[in-house]
């Protein structure tokens, strides 16, 4: 710890702290633009100039004293940038001196000199760091002096200049627009891309006043690009999905969690007039830091389109709006005489634990074995011990099987941190350090810390020391081979992966003292592989981070919604089905006599098949508990965007059960949570950042549902529902059907050919893309959250004249 004085306050901070953090830690404020949490401090904006002095030691090794016998302070000859200055013992910092104030005001003026006066039309207006700093540290009173008759202008004014002019509407991607006039050259976005996702795509072009931000690439690499709109201190980089939707102070800001993937990043849901307009990242230092994926940020358009506000009942083949009374009458008529054991109750992957509890209890009450949740894996993820991202950062070696960049995007960013060897920063009174001097530009990533295997070359391959592409469906062989290599036994063959790669991965795994294994949906869907994995983890000692395809898989399994025997989500078997929040593949409805859905908006299957559709809430609008992949219990808070009559899972289920004349396990979220508290010791009150909750769960793997077709569904961060938004469709382009050239030749396919692929989830157009790195004999198609990591049967239809 280092002792230093900030103005009048003596404080103690850890060694290596920047003066900027020390000043904030002491409770003082200094302006800054270029520093940002988790980015390297570079001292580009010169806003944080402060007066710094240190005592010195004489030749005798003693502090040089002044007349009063105290260590004499030698002030630095000029003001120092606080963000790049390290604290030292006995340092004295003055942030209130006149020269400091003058320098800060001068820097604000320099920055404002060329900043356009767009504030009324700028989406950042009201949340702009430059606006705030200009008010707090600007020069207003220098321009005007007070006279008897009011204000008199004495100096030139910033309104009198011809400002620099540059491109005001430069689209960087379908989601992000750059206004080059507004840019103040803080370099946050440039550093972000290099330091956080590890892609150098943005940079400064030209010098001096002509400097502008630019990229050779169009569009920006999708995945994590949206974060630059959060960290831009001005309105230069803006989110196009929220363009001109409202001013910042008009949004209803709801702090909640994102349920696109199982990491459950903390988000702000900004809504206005009952519509979700914008999603921003919220800081959660242990989960997503301050970053979220593009799917979580830009994929909210579906919540606005075609929202149902009343039940839809099929009459003469068409769905028509009816009252809730009529819907209930219809249900009780059609449900009379139905055997309770033949009813199937299914919940979407983003259902809350309270909903999961109610569904599981209702199924128990009915005596049916048909229940489950969307994207449940065959091996229950709760059977694997949960590990935190902090455990990953504390490890020395990570073995990744799967594609974290798509399956759990936030984990990919934490893996980048792991590769650079960054450990969690110390916490200050103001939270995360703003200028963390441990971080540097272009920090080397250490490939020897990572081995990764996947069914196709993932984004992580560029950073891994050992990598291999296996044929889909051979993860069990892969883990057995790894185990054999660790035990020095003969290796079984793994299609596509060389023996050296496996031996090398096993050797590095054993050499490391702390290890983490990250596995994706494909492993969880293969009980043999998952068994081998848990054996490795148990015998050799490793943390396991599983990336389940269902966001709240851990939570829903805990409540007992994991189907062990009956027909699960998307499997035929039940005579009467009730699906809440998501629709299954069409074949799951085979043999069902009554099909009831509760959906936020109609989709193709519901339009064709449903007998009754109830209006449902999206996860932005629900209250409830969720459990993320780390086993962290988090509480969802509802944004005020649901139609008044939209029902959450508990209400919708109660509606159906009442019409059936059966007992309703819970009628409200609070009631269900109280039961969960009694049953599972789930805490009733949660801190804002959640709490680790890892009870022991006894669940066995499910039998059946192996799939085994030759179409492998690649994980994607985007979900099928998000494709309703035209902007998302435009950004993603047409789905690609990846094929090995040999297989393509055998099938008569060529690069760029337009085909239609019929999968159990429906027919989708795709463009053939040849890739010789993937295993021959398989086709790979983006899953969009449906059947992630599975192999399914398919048919490829080549439309006449479809060859490009």
């Amino acid at each position, binding site marked *: 710890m280092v002792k230093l004085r900030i103005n009048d306050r003596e404080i103690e901070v850890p060694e290596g702290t920047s003066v900027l953090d020390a000043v904030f830690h002491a409770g003082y404020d200094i302006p800054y633009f270029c520093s940002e949490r988790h980015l390297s401090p570079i001292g580009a904006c010169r806003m944080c100039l402060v007066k710094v002095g240190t005592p010195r030691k004489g030749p005798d090794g003693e502090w040089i004293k002044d007349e009063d016998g105290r260590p004499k302070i030698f002030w630095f000859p000029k003001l120092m940038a606080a963000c790049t200055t390290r604290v030292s013992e006995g340092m004295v910092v003055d942030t209130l001196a006149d020269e400091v104030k003058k320098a800060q005001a001068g820097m604000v003026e320099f920055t404002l000199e060329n900043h356009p006066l767009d504030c009324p039309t700028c989406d950042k207006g009201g949340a702009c760091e430059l606006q705030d700093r200009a008010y707090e540290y600007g020069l207003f009173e220098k321009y005007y002096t007070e006279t008897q008759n009011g204000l008199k202008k004495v100096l030139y004014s910033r309104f009198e200049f011809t400002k620099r002019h540059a491109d005001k509407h430069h689209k960087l991607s379908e989601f992000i627009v750059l206004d080059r006039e507004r840019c103040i050259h803080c370099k946050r976005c440039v550093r972000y891309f290099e330091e956080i996702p590890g892609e150098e795509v943005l940079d400064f072009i030209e010098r001096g006043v002509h400097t502008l931000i630019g990229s050779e690439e169009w569009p920006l690499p999708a995945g994590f690009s949206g974060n630059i709109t959060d960290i831009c201190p001005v309105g230069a980089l803006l989110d196009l999905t929220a363009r*001109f939707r*409202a*001013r910042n102070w008009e949004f209803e800001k709801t702090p909640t969690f994102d349920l696109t993937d199982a990491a459950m990043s903390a988000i702000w849901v900004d809504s206005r007039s009952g519509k979700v307009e914008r999603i921003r990242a919220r800081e959660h230092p242990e989960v997503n830091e301050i970053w979220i994926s593009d799917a979580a940020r830009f994929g909210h358009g579906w919540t606005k389109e075609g929202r149902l506000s009343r039940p839809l009942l099929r009459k003469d083949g068409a769905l028509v709006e009816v009252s809730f009374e009529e819907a209930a009458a219809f249900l009780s008529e059609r449900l009379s005489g139905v055997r309770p054991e033949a009813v199937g109750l299914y919940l979407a992957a983003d259902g809350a634990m309270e909903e999961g509890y109610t569904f599981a209890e209702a199924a128990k009450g009915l005596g049916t074995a048909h229940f489950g949740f969307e994207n449940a894996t065959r091996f229950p993820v709760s059977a694997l011990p949960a590990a935190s991202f902090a455990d990953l950062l504390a490890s020395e070696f990570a073995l990744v099987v799967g594609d974290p960049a798509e399956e759990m995007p936030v984990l990919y960013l934490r893996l980048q941190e792991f590769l650079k060897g960054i450990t969690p920063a110390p916490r200050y009174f103001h939270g995360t350090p703003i200028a963390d001097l441990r971080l540097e530009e272009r920090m080397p990533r250490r490939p020897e810390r990572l081995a990764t295997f996947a069914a196709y070359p993932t984004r992580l391959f560029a950073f891994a020391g050992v990598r291999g592409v296996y044929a889909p469906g051979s993860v069990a062989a892969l883990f057995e081979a790894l185990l054999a290599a660790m035990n020095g036994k003969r290796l079984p063959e793994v299609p596509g992966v060389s023996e050296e790669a496996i031996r090398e991965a096993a050797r590095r795994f054993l050499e490391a003292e702390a290890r983490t294994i990250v596995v994706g949906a494909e492993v969880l869907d293969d009980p043999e592989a998952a068994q081998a994995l848990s054996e490795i983890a148990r015998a050799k000692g490793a943390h396991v981070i599983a990336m389940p395809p269902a966001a709240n898989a851990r939570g829903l399994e805990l409540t007992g919604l994991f189907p062990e025997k009956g027909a699960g989500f998307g499997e035929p078997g039940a005579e009467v089905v009730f699906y809440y929040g998501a629709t299954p593949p069409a074949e799951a409805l085979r043999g069902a006599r009554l099909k009831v859905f509760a959906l936020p908006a109609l989709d193709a299957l519901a339009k064709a098949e449903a007998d009754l559709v109830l209006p449902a809430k999206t996860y932005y609008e629900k209250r409830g508990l969720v459990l993320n992949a780390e086993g962290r219990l988090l509480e969802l808070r509802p944004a005020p965007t649901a139609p008044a009559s939209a029902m959450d899972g508990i209400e919708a289920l109660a509606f159906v059960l009442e019409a059936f004349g059966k007992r309703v396990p819970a009628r409200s979220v609070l009631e269900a949570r109280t039961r969960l508290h009694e049953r599972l010791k789930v805490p009733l009150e949660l801190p804002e950042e959640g709490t680790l909750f890892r009870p022991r769960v006894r669940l066995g793997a499910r039998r059946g549902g192996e799939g085994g077709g030759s179409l492998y569904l690649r994980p994607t961060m985007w979900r099928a529902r998000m494709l309703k938004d035209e902007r998302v469709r435009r950004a993603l382009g047409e789905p690609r059907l990846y094929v090995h050239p040999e297989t393509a030749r055998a099938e008569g396919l060529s690069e760029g050919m337009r085909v239609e692929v019929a999968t159990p989830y429906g027919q989708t157009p795709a463009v053939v893309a040849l890739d010789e790195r993937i295993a021959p004999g398989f086709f790979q198609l983006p899953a969009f959250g449906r059947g992630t990591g599975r192999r399914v049967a398919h048919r490829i239809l080549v439309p006449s004249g479809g060859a490009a």
Partner: protein
Amino acid sequence: MSVMALAKALGITLRHFFSKPVTIPYPDAPVPLKPRFHGRHVLTRHPDTGLEKCIGCSLCAAACPAYAIYVEPAENDPENPVSIGERYAKVYEINMLRCIFCGNCEEACPTGAIVLGYEFELADYRYSDFVYTKEDLLVDTVGSKPQRREAKERKKPVKLGFEVPYVRPELEGVKYE
């Protein structure tokens, strides 16, 4: 008690009997207003291009102490812009029941788009009719909602019940006849 006092009092009465009355037979005669009178708002246009001055920045709504204004912005079609620049007000509503005619919106407006005019005859029958939308506020519209409704029914031009010595220059393009 004197006769003189009685005559004096009668004299005052007689003088006022023959002088010009201060009361105005409204609505048969127009009310003279001062130039700075705060009446119903007007959304002005640029006189040369005819584009709306309002850029949908919502600062009027932010300045409004009565929460009477609702603005929903949208992006201009560059081929066919509604206002100057990238942004315009797709929805602009003022609830005249809430409005206290303080003029803060006018002061907050960075483009001089919203200006308080002179019309004050806003009385109407339904709550919903007091929400004035863009078409009720834009510069070419003369008369309040009930006045225009009545004029339409009677197939006569709107009759305004006031006169001003001169129209403020801020009310660019507004003509009261």
